């Protein structure tokens, strides 16, 4: 199948500062594609270029087979955008936000009304339809922003950190909604710095750091390729103890990453390594064995944690 | 020795102002003086040619104290609307303040006194310029400055008490256009109340601005009437007091519920 979105050496500069540094990626119809990375990695800058609201500084970008610089309006007509920061129209009500957004896409009013009813149902805001936007809770605003992004029945939905700031229940509800959209054939492009979100939602993802892509693949492949099967987490009572133990632990396993409050020991056999650590008497206050995750892939590739 | 809480509230506002001095120079000093030049000198020339004196004064002498007090009122109204709502809604600085030992009641008083201090500053500059233009015939004129300050407090206190209850700033332009501007234009500022249709005169006499203007005009022209002036002062003080009493309640409700 032809790619829906294709970037080659895509670059974004703000003055002399390079926010996106020559990245390549391909997004295919119907998949859920993620950009995972820490603050300032260049995720939003990339999303805004795909959304045709930020001119490309270098390289090439094709969206829906068209060039954002020349065909921005036609491309945007087929996209739905959920920006990182909610930008609902605070001068309008919930309902009017959907109505006018539909008008921006030049939809007939009757059709917008039909879709708006459906969408309010979909995001469970029907009882707030005549409320102004300001008094809505953060989660409600987020849901309304998503409903708004769907008013034109987009083929591609761009979601910039869709669940940041939501409580766990609201996050799960949103994931379930997004999953249903994907079932309906909508291509999802999202950014996140939550590895559980990436694992839940993405078929494929790229890990970005400082404007570059450092790895690409499905969540499972990324873990398999870049991390070990299991991780042993060692916590210490005091920072000095952790510091002292580092060299000792390094003799027991090939890969050890110190993070703020613990040591992460990468190993294929967690229990064996945990036993070895305990036997060696490094003096860890707690020892925990778990499966490796995307978080670990990121740490191994960049030497940093995602949320710091 | 500890600084009184009210003064600490004022100090915070002074720090903000130190960054925004240019806006203050333009809108609270320069534009009243431009009005004085346009009305007192430009329009005054036409009045002189036609009627000569207004209420026994040259038009410049007549309009200068009016503009001085009216400008203090406008400054007070502005400062008691947007910044107050900002303090509880957009920037939430009052929320931060009330989290310290300072109480909601002290915030209203401190904030309003701060507005009064600014009105004193602006009125003083205006007064000096007006005097240089020869618009202050009497040495009692200095008393116009406290008159303007009192009038500023009479507007700032109740308006701040009201602003803090709001959720949007939509009504502020409406208050400016439908409340403050008519007062500015019809409180004996630009022409004597006696020229209004007789039905409207008592209405205009209820305007706190009129009381302030009467006080100030009495001072700059040296025609003080003790009896009437005491009434003017009492009316203005009553507005301040009512504003504080109301503000204590509304600020407390908004900040500590």
């Amino acid at each position, binding site marked *: 199948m032809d790619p829906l979105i294709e970037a080659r050496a895509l670059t974004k500069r703000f003055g002399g500062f390079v926010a996106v540094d020559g990245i390549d990626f391909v997004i295919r119809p119907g998949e859920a594609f993620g950009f995972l990375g820490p603050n300032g990695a260049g995720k939003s800058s990339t999303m805004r270029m795909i959304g045709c609201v*930020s001119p490309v500084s270098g390289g090439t970008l094709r969206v829906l087979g068209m060039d954002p610089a020349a065909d921005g309006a*036609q491309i*945007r*007509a087929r996209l739905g955008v959920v920006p990182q920061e909610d930008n609902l129209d605070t001068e309008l009500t919930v309902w009017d936000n959907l109505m006018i957004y539909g008008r921006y896409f*030049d939809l007939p009013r009757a059709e917008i009304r039909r879709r708006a009813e459906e969408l309010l149902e979909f995001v469970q805001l029907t009882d707030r339809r005549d409320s102004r936007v300001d008094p809505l809770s953060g989660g409600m605003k987020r849901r309304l922003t998503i409903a708004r992004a769907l008013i034109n029945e987009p083929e591609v939905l761009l979601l910039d950190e869709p669940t940041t700031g939501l409580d766990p229940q609201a996050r799960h509800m949103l994931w379930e909604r997004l999953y249903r959209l994907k079932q309906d054939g909508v291509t999802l492009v999202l950014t996140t710095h939550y590895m559980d979100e990436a694992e839940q939602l993405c078929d494929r993802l790229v890990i970005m750091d400082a404007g570059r892509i450092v790895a690409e693949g499905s969540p499972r492949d990324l873990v398999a390729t870049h991390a070990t099967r299991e991780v042993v987490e060692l916590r210490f009572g005091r920072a000095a103890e952790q510091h002292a133990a580092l060299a000792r632990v390094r003799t027991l396993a090939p890969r050890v990453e110190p993070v703020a409050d613990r040591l992460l020991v990468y190993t294929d056999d967690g229990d064996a390594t945990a036993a070895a650590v305990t036997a060696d008497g490094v003096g860890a206050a707690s020892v925990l064995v778990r499966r490796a995750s995307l978080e670990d892939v990121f740490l191994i590739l960049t030497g940093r944690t995602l949320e710091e | 020795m500890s600084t009184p809480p009210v003064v600490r509230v004022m100090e915070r506002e002074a720090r903000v102002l130190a960054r925004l001095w240019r806006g203050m120079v333009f809108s609270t000093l320069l534009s009243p003086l431009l009005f004085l030049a346009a009305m007192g000198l*430009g329009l005054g020339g036409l009045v002189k040619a036609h009627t000569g004196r207004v209420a026994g004064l040259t038009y410049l002498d007549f309009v200068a104290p009016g503009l001085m007090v009216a400008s203090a009122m406008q400054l007070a109204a502005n400062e008691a609307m947007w910044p107050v709502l900002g303090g509880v809604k957009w920037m939430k600085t009052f929320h931060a303040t009330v989290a310290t030992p300072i109480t909601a009641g002290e915030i209203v008083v401190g904030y309003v006194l701060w507005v009064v201090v600014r009105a004193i500053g602006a009125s003083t500059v205006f007064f000096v310029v007006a005097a240089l233009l020869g618009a202050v015939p009497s040495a009692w004129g200095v008393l116009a400055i406290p008159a303007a300050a009192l009038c500023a407090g009479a507007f700032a206190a109740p308006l701040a008490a009201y602003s803090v209850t709001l959720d949007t700033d939509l009504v502020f332009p409406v208050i400016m256009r*439908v409340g403050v501007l008519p007062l500015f234009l019809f409180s004996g500022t630009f022409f004597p109340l006696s020229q209004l249709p007789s039905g409207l005169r008592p209405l205009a006499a209820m305007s706190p601005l009129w009381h302030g203007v009467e006080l100030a005009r009495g001072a700059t022209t040296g025609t003080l009437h003790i009896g009437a002036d005491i009434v003017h002062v009492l009316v203005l003080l009553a507005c301040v007091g009512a504003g504080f009493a109301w503000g204590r309640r509304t600020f407390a409700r908004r900040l500590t519920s």
Partner: protein
Amino acid sequence: MSARMGSMRVLPPLGARQRPWRMVERNVLAYRRTWYVFLSGFFEPVLFLLSIGIGVGKLVGKLPFDGHLVDYKQFVAPGLLASAAMNGSLLDTTFNFFVKYKYSHTYDAILATPLGTGDVATGEVVWALMRGAIYSTAFLLTMVAFGLVPSWWALLVVPVAVLIGFAFAGAGLAGTTFMRSWVDFDYVTLALVPLFLFSATFFPLSQYPAGLQAVIRLTPLYQGVVLERALVLGHMQWTLLVHAAYLAVMGAVGLRVAARRIGRLLQP
């Protein structure tokens, strides 16, 4: 949501000409619930007319204008109308535009749709002009009610008010593209108040010192005041076309500057 299954259809691209009208539609929607704010915009010039025109007018009597004597209120009313046209248009294209793009991010959301930066700017200018046309029509009717409009040329008063609005919309929008923060708007106030007071609005040019008269002849609101006063009083002259041309050029140049800069401003 079942209807979406087969919806890989391509929407017809919105006709480029219609797009700015969507901005107007949005603003109408926004004001539908806050009509009293819209309504209050009408009071300002009327209150000035009552106070300065009629109240102070009694103290001023009649003024010589073009060889005749005219009532002061008749002299001042067209000036107030021209000032109101300037005021409204400047507020919409400076403060209001700045708030929407910098603080409420209203335009960010709109630009994610087929509307582009040009459509947003054009739409806002069109809206400002429509609003100005409504207010100046209302004010003109008030003037008629007060018997202040002797000439049929006054039919052109509203179109000229729109022209004044256009001139200041161009200047305002161009200026806004250079603004970095709130503090910069002090310059708008700095320009607005002297223009309002010293454009032969409240008293004729002859009241100024000679040196100042030459300066005022060059300022933008003066052009509008001269035009409106001539139309209301029916004193038509060919030289009025120069004043109209001044305003047209000012608006066009301003919008060109704004058009070049606004894309980068709204979409960094």
